[in-house]
C-alpha cells in the first residue's frame, strides 16, 4: 500500500510541476453562472449584442480569456471583458473553456 500511495503522490507532483490544469466542466458551469450568463446568455449561446461563446475549442477560449485578463483589447466590448476576466484564476479559465466547448442551450 505505501508503494501505491507513493506512486500516486509522485504522479500528482509531476502533474502539478508540468503546469497543466485539467478543466472541470461542472465547475466551469458553476462559474459561468456566477457572472458570464448575465450577458452571454444560458450555455454561452449569446444574447442581444453579446456574442455566442460556446462550441469553440478549449484552446481558443483559454487564449481569449487569458488575453483579456492581461488587458488586451479586441472587439468593441473589450473593456467589459477585461474587467470580467481580471479576477479569473488559471483553473477557472480552464474550467470555463472546458464547459463552454460542449455547452448547449435547451430552453
Amino acid at each position, binding site marked *: 500500500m505505501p508503494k501505491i500511495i507513493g506512486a500516486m503522490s509522485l504522479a500528482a507532483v509531476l502533474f502539478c510541476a508540468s503546469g497543466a490544469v485539467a478543466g472541470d466542466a461542472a465547475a466551469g458551469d458553476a462559474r459561468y453562472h456566477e*457572472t458570464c450568463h*448575465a*450577458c452571454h*446568455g*444560458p450555455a454561452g*449561446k449569446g*444574447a*442581444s*449584442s453579446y456574442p455566442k461563446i460556446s462550441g469553440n475549442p478549449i484552446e481558443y477560449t483559454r487564449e481569449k480569456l487569458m488575453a483579456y485578463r492581461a488587458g488586451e483589447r479586441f*472587439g*468593441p*466590448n473589450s*473593456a*467589459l471583458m*477585461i*474587467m*470580467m476576466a481580471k479576477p479569473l484564476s488559471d483553473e477557472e479559465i480552464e474550467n470555463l473553456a472546458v464547459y463552454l466547448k460542449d455547452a448547449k*442551450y435547451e*430552453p
Partner: protein
Amino acid sequence: MKLSTYRSLAVSAASVLLMGVAAASAQGMNVPVIKATPVLEGLESPWDMSVHADGTMFFTEKCKGLSMRSPDGTVTNIYGMKGSEGYSDAGEDLFCEGQAGMMGVASDRDFDQNRRLYVASTSDKYHGDGCKSNFERCDGNIVMRLTLSEDMMSVVDRTDIVTDIQYKPFESDQPFGGPGAHNGGRVRIGPGGYLWITGGDRHSGICPQSPELLCGKVVRVDTDGNAHPDNNPPAGFDKRIYTYGHRNVQGIDFRPSDGKAFTAEHGPWHSDEITALVNGGNAGWDPQQNTAGRGECPDQYCGYEPEQMDGMDPAVRAAYMPMSDPRFDDLMPPTWNNNGWSQGTSSAAFLKGDNWGIYEGRLATGVLGIGFGGTPIGQRIDMISITDDGLAINAITRMPLGFSKRFRGLVMAPDNSLYVATDEGEIYQVTATPMQ
C-alpha cells in the same frame, strides 16, 4: 433626494410589502396565480411585440426583421432587414449593429381599418454627409409606418415618418463602447392615438441636453411624424420633443388611471430609473465634458466617469455623474432608482385588468441583469406600485415566474395577459388568474 433616502424608501417599501402579503393572506385578498407559457422559442433577440384582440402577435427580432404569429401559431416573416432570408420583403437600408437594429413595434389604434404598424429600426438611408465619425451628426434611426396587405402577409406601403434620430456609427473608448450603443427604440401608441418614441444618448455627451438632436429624448408625434400640438419643450427645441435629458430609454407605458407616461431607463452603473414624464421636462442626464465640475472625458463622454473602466460604489459614481442632476430647474425627479443600482431596466408595462388582483395597476418592469462592479445581476420582472403623484413607490413585488432571463420587451395584450420577450430567444405569455 439623496441615495440614502432612496434606500430608506426602498427598505420601507419592502416592509410595507411584507406586511401587505401577511395582510393579504389574513384577509383573503386577491393574490393571483401567475403563470408563464412560452408562445415562441428559438428566436434571435426578439425585441418587441404588439398583440391584437384575436391573438395575432407582431414581433421584431433585432437583426432579422418583423414577423407575425397568427392565432393558430403559424409564423409569417413579413419585412426583413438587409441580408435577412425568408421574408416576404426587406428594407435594404435596414441593418443591425450592437444594441441597435429593428426594435420597437406598435399597432395603429385603427389597425382593423388601416392595417398600419409603426416600427423603429436602424437605417443607412438618411446618413447623407454625416456619420463619418462619432462626433458629427448621424441620422441612423428611423420610424417606419408600414401598411400591411389585407392578408397581413406582406407590406404594401412603407412611409418613413421619423428619419432623424441619431445613431452611434463607431466604437468609442467606453464600456459597452461598440457602435449602436444607447439606441433607445421603444415605440408605443399613447392617449389620443399619438406615437411615442424613446431615445438614447448614443454615447454622445451633447445629445441629451441638445435642443435640436432627437437622441436622448422622448418624442411624441402624430402618425405622420408631426409634432403633437400640445408638446411643450423649452424655447428653441424641436417641437417633436416631449421630454429631454435622457440616457437610454427602452421602456414606456401610460398609467391606466390617468394616462400619465412613465419611462424605464438604463442607468450608468448606478441608478436605473422609472420616471413620471412631465411635458417639456428634463430627466437630468448631462454627460458633456467640462460640465458640472467635470473635466475632459474619454471621447468627450463622461457618462461612466469617474474611472469608467473600474467598479466602484454606485453612490460615489452617482455623486460625480448623476443620472438626474438636481442642478436643472426643470428636472423630473425619478419615481424609483433601483436602490441606486444599474441592472438594466429595459421595458415596462402597466398591468391592466382585475385578473391581476392586488397587482392591477402596477408597473411591470423587466430587468436584463448586469452584474459589474459587485452589483447583483438581478434578472427579474418587478411589479411596482407607484404613488398617485408619480413621484415615489408604495411597494415592489418580484413577479413569481420561476425563472430568470434577460427580460427585454414587455407589453400588455387585449386579454389582459402580459407578453414578455427575452434576449435568450423566447416570447412568453404571462397570465394572472384569481386564486379562488
